[in-house]
């Protein structure tokens, strides 16, 4: 099979699955999971085939592009030497998205497999698997597309599926609210993205990634314009990758089913922002101001959410804040000018974070609670499979060598040390320390607690057991080996020591606080300190949004409402209709039903016309 065939298979297999599941008769919709899994396995195998064919970047980049629209074949903008404006559609494959496409399709397959276990009691499973397949379709489209507009299209589609899946249990009010929150915040951010695309197209004339090169951009556009475009597009990234101040939707998005969180809200969709940063890296790196803003936003996000992760009780929220924090680290790396290290961390993070989410799903499904103390209380540490995988994922997350997280985080630290300046390096070090702290905290609480009211596992069939364990083990293995696939694989002794010290310090701090989890919980309840309160309220971000929406927004809305009623409605709309009515009343007197009056008008006007010609 040629590359193009493989592209089509990867792109269309999930869509086909989605459509098949939609038309499935109700009587046999039990096979929906099988359809979803089969097609996502197809896509995964196709992308593996692709990545073996191009291992070590052989024969890349490959582009299949077709001209779609010639918007204008003359320069429409004064002083900008753009001779024509064309839009194209197509596939572009380079080492960057080869990595990404493999990651998306494999994780998508594992998550579908795990979902078979996780959702096996849910009556609306076909809908779930349909949406999941549709998400895979959108995500592969996003990754494979060769220009910004096509990316944007699929970007919106993944946003939509994210909304649908967060609100999958829409009868639950909190889930519906969370879905709406995610949707609205993302649309707000995407507005910036879209404006950026329009501006870029107006001024540059093409949106193909292959043509967005730093030199070409600098030749055509000024520094200010480039910064503006970069920041507008980064706005979309901030929404999708949950960067400050748009990060508030991601923790709430945990209302969705846990495998969805693993696939969409940790591994793939939220990473799309980082992916876009790397994909259109020249667009951002063309202006050092943009890079500095990206770096700062990443730093704020990483630090803020790492501290928040350290106080959460809900296992999924811990992981969610951790995701935000890690995304912040990736954004920092790219802001410091190294797209490779950001993407490397993205890929390792995708594997171990989806592993962690699936593990948390395994806990939640068995113990019916999200609270880590309750999980521990109900016998969390007896679930050897889940606990082992949790340990695996957490070790990787906190950056213990030789797990994958170690290599990628090391690389980021190195990049920040050399290119980011001492301040941002310090932030990253602090974040690494906090990461180790909350990882070990999570582990210790579950592993060291005494078991209170033990919950025995239901009897599970062999299929269910396999669909539970297989994805966990596979992802655990992947989160071990992906570390060694990095292009810039090397060991820096100094950084190794730094990392180990950070991990040990974080672990030690966590151990000292949580060696007796029950006591620690009591202490936690008693602690109402100032900092703790700030953390509890998530740095007042939700309150700030609340204020913005409820006070400022409502006041504005009230004013606009009054304006609408007084000026638009009564003055303009109603007066228009009233005047038409008045005119109509006058004219309708002509239509009085008297035949001879009509005749008189007709003959009279006819005579007038005759006189005009005389």
């Amino acid at each position, binding site marked *: 099979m040629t590359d193009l065939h493989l592209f089509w298979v990867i792109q269309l297999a999930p869509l086909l699955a989605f459509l098949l599941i939609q038309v499935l008769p109700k009587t046999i919709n039990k096979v929906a999971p099988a359809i979803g899994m089969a097609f996502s396995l197809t896509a995964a195998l196709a992308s593996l085939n692709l990545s073996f064919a191009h291992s070590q970047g052989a024969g890349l980049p490959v582009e299949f592009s077709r001209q779609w629209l010639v918007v204008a074949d003359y320069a429409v903008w004064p002083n900008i030497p753009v001779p024509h404006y064309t839009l194209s559609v197509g596939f572009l494959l380079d080492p960057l998205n080869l990595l990404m496409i493999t990651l998306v399709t494999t994780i998508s397959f594992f998550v579908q497999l795990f979902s078979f276990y996780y959702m096996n009691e849910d009556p609306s499973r076909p809908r779930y698997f349909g949406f999941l397949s549709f998400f895979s379709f959108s995500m592969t489209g996003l990754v494979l597309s060769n220009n910004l507009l096509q990316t944007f299209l699929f970007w919106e589609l993944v946003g939509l599926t994210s909304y649908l899946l967060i609100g999958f249990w829409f009868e639950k009010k909190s889930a519906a609210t969370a879905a709406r929150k995610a949707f609205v915040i993302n649309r707000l951010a995407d507005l910036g993205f879209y404006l950026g695309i329009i501006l870029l197209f107006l001024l540059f004339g093409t949106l193909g990634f292959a043509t967005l090169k730093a030199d070409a951009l600098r030749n055509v556009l000024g520094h200010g314009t480039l910064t503006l475009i970069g920041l507008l597009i980064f706005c979309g990234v901030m929404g999708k990758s949950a960067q400050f101040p748009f990060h508030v939707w991601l923790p709430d998005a945990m209302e969705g089913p846990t495998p969805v969180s693993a696939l969409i809200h940790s591994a793939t969709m939220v990473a799309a922002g980082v992916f876009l940063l790397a994909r259109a890296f020249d667009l951002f790196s063309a202006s050092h101001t943009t890079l500095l803003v990206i770096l700062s936003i990443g730093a704020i996000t990483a630090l803020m959410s790492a501290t928040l992760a350290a106080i959460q009780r809900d296992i999924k929220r811990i992981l969610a804040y951790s995701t935000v924090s890690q995304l912040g680290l990736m954004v920092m790396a790219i802001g410091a000018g190294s797209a490779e290290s950001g993407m490397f961390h993205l890929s390792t993070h995708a594997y171990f974070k989806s592993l962690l989410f699936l593990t948390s799903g395994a806990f939640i499904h068995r113990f019916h609670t999200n609270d880590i103390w309750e999980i521990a209380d109900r016998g969390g540490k007896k679930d050897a499979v889940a606990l082992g995988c949790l340990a695996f994922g957490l070790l990787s997350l906190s950056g213990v060598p030789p797990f994958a997280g170690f290599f990628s985080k090391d690389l980021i630290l190195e990049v920040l040390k050399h290119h980011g300046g001492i301040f941002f390096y310090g932030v990253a070090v602090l974040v690494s320390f906090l990461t180790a702290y909350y990882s070990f905290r999570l582990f210790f609480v579950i592993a060291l607690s005494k078991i209170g009211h033990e919950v025995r596992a239901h009897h599970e069939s062999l299929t269910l057991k396999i669909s539970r364990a297989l994805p966990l083990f596979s992802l655990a293995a992947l989160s071990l080996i992906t570390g060694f696939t990095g292009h810039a694989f090397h060991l820096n002794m100094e950084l190794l020591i730094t990392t180990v010290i950070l991990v040990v310090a974080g672990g030690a701090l966590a151990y000292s606080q949580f060696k007796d989890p029950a006591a620690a919980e009591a202490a936690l309840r008693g602690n109402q300190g100032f900092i703790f309160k700030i953390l509890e309220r998530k740095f007042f971000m939700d309150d700030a949004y609340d204020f913005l929406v409820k006070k400022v927004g409502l006041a504005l809305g009230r004013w606009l409402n009054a304006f609408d009623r007084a000026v638009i409605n009564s003055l303009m709309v109603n007066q228009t209709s009233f005047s038409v009515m008045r005119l109509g009343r006058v004219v309708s007197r002509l239509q009085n039903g008297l035949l*001879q009056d009509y005749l*008189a008008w007709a*003959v009279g006007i006819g*005579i007038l016309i005759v006189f005009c010609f005389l």
Partner: protein
Amino acid sequence: MMENIVFFGVVALTLLGAFLAVSLRNVFYNALALVLCLFGVACLFIFLNSEFLAVMEVIVYIGAISIAIIFAIMLSTPMLQKTEAPQDRLKTLRSFVIAALLFGGLFKALQKTTWPAAGVDGDYSLHAIGRLLLTGQVLPFEAVSLVLLVAIMGALLLAEKK
């Protein structure tokens, strides 16, 4: 000279008939005045060398149409008591002004125009009319016959007692 006297007599007859046909209050008298007017027009047709038309005018118009109108009057109004309610003065005035203006306009147009002239001699015969009806004007002829058919059917349908 004699011709002129007769001509003016006929014209006076026609216009008087016309005037009475629209101005008398009683509809029955109107119908009778219409007969007078139509008779005058038939005489004018003779002055215009169209004897066949004059005969047709008398037979069809006076003999059929006017009689039909009189029948309608008989059917719809008890004859002698039906003097119309007094006319609306304003309406009469308005109608008069419009009619006068119309006449003025037509008169002026008549004066300003020079009409093409051809000799008065020619074949006015019934023979020529019949030939023309079935050759050059056969299409309008057929159309008119169709209209007549439809009109008769329509009239039957409309006047049918439900």
